């Protein structure tokens, strides 16, 4: 009896809107994330236009007021991290890939999975609704430091601040539910024969990321409740005049906020690992090294948070400790990058679009990582803190993570998700346009940051030292980079939606990959596997000696062995 027969085709409502099928939920996250990316991108466009041409009309928006500017910056950061990077990297790819890659038909708790998306969707509606509340959306930065965030009299958005907090808290709940589901599914739902070291790296990384999220977000959940009470019920948890401490929020926030960087970094690293091995046609170099460094990043990620607070008045001796831990965590991350480069060495590289994105990830992320060394060292950070250098640095980490690696994943798994191939030529045009635009947008920020441009300034013309033509030209160059970047995303969108109907029909395994999702039809039917697979080997057996084919699917029984082994 085939599994497809057991799973009868459900009605439209059950299939797409009330679904428990992990693939449908993945798509719900995917399209919600994509929509939110457009919103976040539009916000960036508006405030970059304001910085390039202060006080002038922004086409499609109007004149930006100082308060609106703060809200735009805040919502851009919040949306891009919580409603784009998280749903795309963790939820969309996690939901789609985990059951397929471990050889299972669904998540361990399909209905909790549905609930997690519904809460996430609600959180997205709540954050978008904050644009329409009295006083406008919250403008106290995505870090929401009190006392600014705690008092409506300071942030001028008493509604916006609480709605913002509520939306973020709902998002946390959604990802706690989802994360527990991912971890349990991977632990218990694996196909017979799939041992610890046979799990594809991307699955490992999503699982480790979910665990990091679970353990880092807990204190901030408590902290968010406390901030909400400060806002609405008159408590003084963060008010020093009433026995509270605003630094407490900074600790709770960054105890989550820094591990959060690794929560989104790891799935991106995982996607890149899988794409690299497939298109280098070579066994992933140092599978176990990658796994151990992943765990090292996960553990060390919990002891670096105060490097965000070097100038916040923390004990200088503590700053020394956090400088050391921060420099230490760069070791496992660097190790991962080296191992990826070693995978390329001696490979038979195919420069497909997903491979280009994966290679770009390594190159661009290295820039983000190296500049992080300056910010992680308390001495240099005192100068660079809250300048555009910081913005350039974390965009060189977050853009490779949430944009470049996500595109690597989309171009790679699109055939499996939708049963059609994306157009390669347009994919490469999209790639080069995006990469050029991205670097043009952020390299000038390193320079303006070093020249002392502070973050979150609405208009530099009032500050004699920052109002020089040289600096303003750099700011305009940066906006110009964004204006190059954005149109190329429409090329992607057209390619995406056009290919849904008109793309070349995808075969079962167009990239000749080994992992289990490529052993089922594209797109996979409800229930995934006609016959539940058994796993015989690791996921990266490319170019095994003595075999005619250069790949070796995980579920292929060993009697097809070529001779040696």
């Amino acid at each position, binding site marked *: 009896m085939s599994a497809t027969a057991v799973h009868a085709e459900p009605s439209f409502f059950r299939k797409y809107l009330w679904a428990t099928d992990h693939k449908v939920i993945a798509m719900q996250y995917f399209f919600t994330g994509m929509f939110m990316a457009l919103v976040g991108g539009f916000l960036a466009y508006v405030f970059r236009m304001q910085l390039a041409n202060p006080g002038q009309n922004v086409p499609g928006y109007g004149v930006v007021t100082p308060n609106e500017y703060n809200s735009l910056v805040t919502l851009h950061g919040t949306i891009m991290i919580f409603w784009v990077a998280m749903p795309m990297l963790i939820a969309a790819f996690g939901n789609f890939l985990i059951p397929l890659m471990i050889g299972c038909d669904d*998540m361990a708790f399909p209905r909790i999975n549905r609930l997690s998306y519904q809460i996430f969707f609600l959180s997205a509606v709540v954050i978008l609704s904050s644009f329409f509340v009295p006083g406008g959306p919250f403008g106290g930065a995505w870090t929401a430091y009190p006392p600014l965030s705690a008092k409506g009299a300071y942030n001028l958005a008493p509604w916006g601040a609480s709605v913002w907090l509520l939306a973020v808290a709902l998002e946390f709940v959604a990802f706690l539910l989802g994360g527990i589901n991912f971890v349990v599914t991977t632990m218990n739902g*694996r196909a017979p024969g*799939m041992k610890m070291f046979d799990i594809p790296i991307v699955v490992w990384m999503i699982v480790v990321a979910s665990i990091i999220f679970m353990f880092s977000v807990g204190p901030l959940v408590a902290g968010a409740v406390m901030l909400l009470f400060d806002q609405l019920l008159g408590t003084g948890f963060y008010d020093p005049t009433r026995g509270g401490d605003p630094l407490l929020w900074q600790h709770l926030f960054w105890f989550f906020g820094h591990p959060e960087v690794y929560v989104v970094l790891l799935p991106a690293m995982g996607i890149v690992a899988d794409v690299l091995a497939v298109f280098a046609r070579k066994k992933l170099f140092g599978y176990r090294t990658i796994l151990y460094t992943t765990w090292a990043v996960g553990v060390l990620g919990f002891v670096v948070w105060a490097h965000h607070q070097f100038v916040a008045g923390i004990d200088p001796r503590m700053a020394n400790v956090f400088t050391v831990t921060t420099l230490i965590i760069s070791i496992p991350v660097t190790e991962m990058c080296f191992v990826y480069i070693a995978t390329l060495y001696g490979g038979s590289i195919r420069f497909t679009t997903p491979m280009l994105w994966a290679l770009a990830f390594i190159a661009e992320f290295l820039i983000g990582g190296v500049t992080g060394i300056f910010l992680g060292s308390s001495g240099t950070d005192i100068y660079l803190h809250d300048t555009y250098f910081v913005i350039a640095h974390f965009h060189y980490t977050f853009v490779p993570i949430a944009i470049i690696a996500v595109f690597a994943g989309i171009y790679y798994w699109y055939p499996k998700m939708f049963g059609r191939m994306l157009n390669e030529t347009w994919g490469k045009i999209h790639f080069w346009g995006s990469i050029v635009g991205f670097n043009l947008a952020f390299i000038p920020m390193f320079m303006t940051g070093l020249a002392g441009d502070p973050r979150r300034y609405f208009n530099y013309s009032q500050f004699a030292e920052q109002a020089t033509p040289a600096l303003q030209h750099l700011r305009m160059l940066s906006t110009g980079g964004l204006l190059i970047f954005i149109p190329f995303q429409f090329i992607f969108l057209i390619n995406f939606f056009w290919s849904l109907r008109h793309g070349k029909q995808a075969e079962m395994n167009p990239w000749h990959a080994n992992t289990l999702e490529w052993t089922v039809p594209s797109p996979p039917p409800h229930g995934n596997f006609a016959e539940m697979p058994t796993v015989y080997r690791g996921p990266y057996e490319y170019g095994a000696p003595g075999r005619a084919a250069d790949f070796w699917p995980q579920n292929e029984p060993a009697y097809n062995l070529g001779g040696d082994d």
Partner: protein
Amino acid sequence: MTSKPIATGRTAAGLPTARLVVWWVVASEIFIFGGLLASYVMHRLGHPEWAFQAAHTNTWAGAFNTLVLLTSSLFAVLGHKAADSGDGPRAARLLRLTALGGLTFLCVKAFEWTHEIREGFVLSSGGFWSFYYTAAGLHAAHVMVGMIILLVVAADAARNQELHRVECIGIYWHFVDIIWIFLFPLLYIAR
């Protein structure tokens, strides 16, 4: 209703999925309460004068509640034992007794809070009271959720269905109990 996905029944890690997930829930909850309690302890160390506020709490009521919760946890264990031996109705009775313990706990809590609020100590009356009501309130919310789940699981167990859930809710209830074991000395006894 179509049949359940294969995923829900697999146990590749050697541990039933339901029990595994409860442990993960408990682990993530530990970090929520851990963050709150760590914040409280740090503040408390920095504010020795909070001891004068803490002196207004009713230590005897807190001690009684500790006893009530510990006893209810005993019923949860006995319920697990009954479920293991396949005696669903007995397990259901014991789970309902556990929930009754939760109800007693909440009643005592209500009595305490009424008294304190009448004395003028409310959520916004200063650092200690903010932490007191927030931490105990978060815990009480967990007690309420636990009671609801206890009763739902008991209803199934009474018909000898889903007996494995008796153990799962037991784990959660013990966790709620242990959180109280931390809260009681930190909020009531420490002077």
